[in-house]
């Protein structure tokens, strides 16, 4: 295996008494688009900032392309970063914003002008090079932030929730632009987000974090199809996987399982028990709500001690009241007492 | 940030030196000198607390003390009450109000010397315009500046006039910061105007009132130009205040030690009131 582009070894990071990261090991391959995903406070931004050099670890090493970054300043690591709030220099024009890093890097004027012209063309900034950030829209500002990063031709791009301040439509647009950019440049990307939809659509590899620990590290497909634990199962998916505590009846078929899970889109509803195919697991409950979401309908069914959501792609008029949920046995996931998946790992392994 | 360890110290050094030399050191030196008798030419003679004893027994200084107290209390009171009324009156953002606000601010930025001179002429007993205007309403001419019962109040009027613009400006922006929905809710609760003022407006601007009371208090104690140019401390010491008294004793009578002692007393006076301020009023201020 070749040298990873980015490696964290035995990283500890505390803020005062609060331990954010403890004994963390991480590797990111050259040319990959790695997404650091997790709820707020999980340490994903901290990891990003450690890579950037904006924070230093209490213990452990950060290596980039095999070299220790202990003595290396953020500006000298060959890294560019795009911030959540764009962090554009308010008193400089767009052009000056983009040029700043190049100037500090000692790049000659001719080369600077060339690169800026190229970037302006690529990102579509030509019209407002002379404007100041306060006169730009959110989407335009983000493009400038992107351009500022790209023009330095860094070996690594770091992005800290860059789309979270944009409205939904712009977000979708810029997401596509980012994917295209990645494909064109082929540099290493590290992207931080709390939005699992974003993570799934952008990343080649997703690292799911909770409270400073890596819960699962896999491709988006893996993450969806084979969650390693209850946390992963519940974090991924819209809506997330339904998790039910195994009762004596159903747990007979899953010995040792403490929780069972299934995806809303794999479940089905019927009022006629006899129509359920044999082999399916059956959960009797009561239909309480349904939400029409355009192409899909979301049903909520409550049972003894559990609530489950079912996603169907057809609008059947199921009356509120007693129903049966049934799921094909092969779509059921079992989790042990520690919350870990009991499925046998796929060939090739998760991690 | 891998900054040079010494860098922050270098950066604050020029300013800190100035403060140490021109603020800290003078206080200490003044305290030191207050225990001596000195006329700047001869030697310093240590006399312990005698200067303070003289101050306490001096009728003149007693007058100075009470004058300063009166001046401070009256100017703070008048300033705040009048500027609050004016700020409320000019609250709406109309062209007229904007013009008026600009007009009342003008005296604030010109020199106190200029203001003193204008009012000196304005308040002239025989030829001043003020007495003429009063005469139109049938009021007898007032001896603004040479009547020992009136003079100090006249000086207060001058400083209130000058400072109104500033106070109004600050109050106006504080009033503007009160969210409109509070008033709307009060309207729905059928609250009467005075009640609204008392329970909503006043509490919301109380931090500002506190700030203005403090700044006006300190400013009133610094008053020198009005005294020096309009009354020179008279008549019969009725307008002599701390600063003028120290000036007289230091620069006219050359009683350096005595003047220093007076300075120390002035400092304690300011300190005491500031502390009292914070302790008493701070509790009544509504902080968000």
């Amino acid at each position, binding site marked *: 295996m070749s040298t990873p582009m980015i490696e964290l070894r035995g990283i500890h990071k505390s803020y005062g008494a609060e331990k954010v990261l403890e004994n963390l090991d991480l590797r990111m391959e050259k040319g990959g688009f790695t997404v650091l995903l997790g709820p707020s406070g999980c340490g994903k931004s901290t990891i990003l900032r450690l890579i950037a050099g904006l924070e230093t670890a209490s213990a452990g090493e950060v290596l980039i392309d095999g070299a220790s970054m202990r003595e290396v300043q953020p500006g000298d690591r060959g890294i560019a970063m795009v911030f959540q709030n764009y962090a554009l220099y308010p008193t400089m024009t767009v052009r000056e914003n983009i040029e700043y890093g190049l100037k500090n890097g000692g790049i000659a004027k001719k080369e600077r002008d060339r690169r800026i012209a190229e970037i302006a063309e690529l990102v579509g900034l030509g019209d407002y090079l002379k404007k100041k950030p306060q006169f730009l829209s959110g989407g335009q500002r983000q493009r400038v932030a992107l351009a500022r990063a790209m023009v330095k031709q860094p070996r690594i791009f770091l992005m800290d929730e860059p789309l979270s301040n944009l409205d939904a439509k712009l977000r979708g647009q810029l997401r596509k632009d980012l994917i295209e950019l990645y494909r064109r440049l082929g540099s290493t990307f590290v992207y931080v987000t709390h939005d699992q939809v974003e993570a799934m659509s952008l990343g080649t590899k997703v690292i799911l974090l909770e409270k400073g620990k890596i819960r699962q590290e896999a491709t988006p497909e893996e993450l969806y199809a084979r969650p390693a634990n209850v946390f992963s199962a519940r974090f991924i998916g819209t809506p997330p996987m339904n998790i039910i505590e195994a009762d004596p009846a159903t747990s007979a078929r899953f010995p040792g399982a403490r929780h069972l899970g299934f995806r809303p889109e794999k479940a089905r509803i019927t009022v006629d028990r006899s129509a359920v195919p044999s082999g399916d697991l059956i959960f009797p409950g009561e239909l309480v709500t349904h939400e029409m979401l355009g192409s899909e309908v979301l049903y909520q069914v409550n049972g003894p001690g559990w609530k489950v959501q079912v996603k169907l792609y057809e609008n059947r008029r199921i009356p509120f009241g007693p129903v049966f949920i049934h799921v094909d046995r092969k779509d059921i996931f079992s989790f042990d007492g520690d919350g870990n998946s009991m499925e046998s790992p796929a060939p090739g392994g998760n991690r | 940030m891998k900054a040079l360890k010494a860098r922050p110290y270098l950066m604050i050094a020029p300013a800190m030196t100035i403060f140490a030399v021109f603020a800290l050191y003078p206080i200490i030196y003044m305290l030191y000198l207050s225990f001596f008798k000195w006329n700047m030419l001869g030697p310093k003679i240590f006399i312990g607390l005698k200067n303070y004893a003289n101050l306490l027994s001096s009728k003149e200084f007693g007058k100075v003390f009470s004058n300063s107290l009166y001046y401070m209390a009256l100017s703070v009171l008048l300033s705040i009450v009048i500027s609050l009324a004016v700020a409320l009156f000019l*609250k709406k953002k109309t062209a007229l109000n904007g013009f008026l606000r600009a007009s009342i601010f*003008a005296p604030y930025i010109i020199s106190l010397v200029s203001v003193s001179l204008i009012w000196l002429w304005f308040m002239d007993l025989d030829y001043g315009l003020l007495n003429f205007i009063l005469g139109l309403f049938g009021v007898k001419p007032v001896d603004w500046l040479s009547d020992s019962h009136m003079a100090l109040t006249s000086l207060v009027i001058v400083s209130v006039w000058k400072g109104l613009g500033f106070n109004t400006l600050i109050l106006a922006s504080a009033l503007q910061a009160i969210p409109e929905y509070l008033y709307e809710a009060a309207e729905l609760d059928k609250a009467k105007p005075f009640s609204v003022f008392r329970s909503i407006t006043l509490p919301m601007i109380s931090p500002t009132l506190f*700030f203005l009371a403090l700044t006006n208090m300190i400013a009133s104690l610094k008053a020198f130009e009005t005294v020096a140019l309009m009354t020179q401390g008279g008549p019969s010491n009725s307008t002599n205040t701390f600063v003028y008294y120290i000036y007289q004793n230091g620069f006219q009578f050359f009683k350096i030690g005595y003047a220093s002692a007076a300075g120390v007393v002035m400092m304690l006076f300011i300190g005491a009131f500031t502390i009292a301020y914070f302790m008493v009023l701070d509790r009544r201020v509504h902080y968000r």
Partner: protein
Amino acid sequence: MIRARHAIPLTGRLLVSLLIFLVYFVPFYWMALTAIKSKGEMLQFPPTFWTAHPSWDNFAAAFGAFPFWKYLWNSILVSGSIILCQIFTVVPAAYAFARYRFKGSGIFFGLTLASVMIPPQLVFLPVFLLMNRFGLINHYASLILPQAASAFGIFMLRQTFRQVPEEVLEAARMDKASELSIITRIMIPIAMPTISALGLITFIGTWNDYFWPLVLTTSDAVRTLPVGVASLKLLDSGISIPYNVVMAGNLILIIPVLLIYLIAQQRITKAFTYMGEK
């Protein structure tokens, strides 16, 4: 107050507005008018509200009563020098307090706080003695040095510096910016409104200052305009106080500040409001 509109009828409002206006306009008008009246006309009672024969002699008298041009030059020089000094003392100090953590910063900041509370009127005697000991009386240095740093300015500017979003500074670090570059190309431009507000306030304060020049000078050498104008009171012209000449001098003293006020009115009022929001 919300429904005060109902409480004050229109005529009442106009009357009060007129009253406020007059209270503030009349003294100024009266000053300007007196400045162009002759001595005889000035002493007329009842006074005239307009003058048919404006006399410009008063201004000449004012110019002649004291070394006017020298004082004017001194005012300009002293104000300008003080502002310049303050830039070099206040900006670095405010930056250091805002963005560095260093031992003793609390104590030094406390010193700054104390200095705000210590007015010249309290310390002028020891300062005079100090200047005298170094032979600096009647030297420009004596007027400039005591005001070479503004504690208040450090407060305001520190506040402004602290409000710069951390992200912008981090982006600068990622852009390989040196400390100096961050200060000059990012922090100072962002803080420009505050800095110019401070400059304006300082100019107005020093131009108008009567106290320090009075206390620290004993001759004409470095005296400033306010002292000169005040001395017009003592001019010998046959009457106790030649108000017409005094007002003429006064007018000259006021005009620069009023001009600046007219031009930069918004800026100035904004500057002082800023000051209010401690």
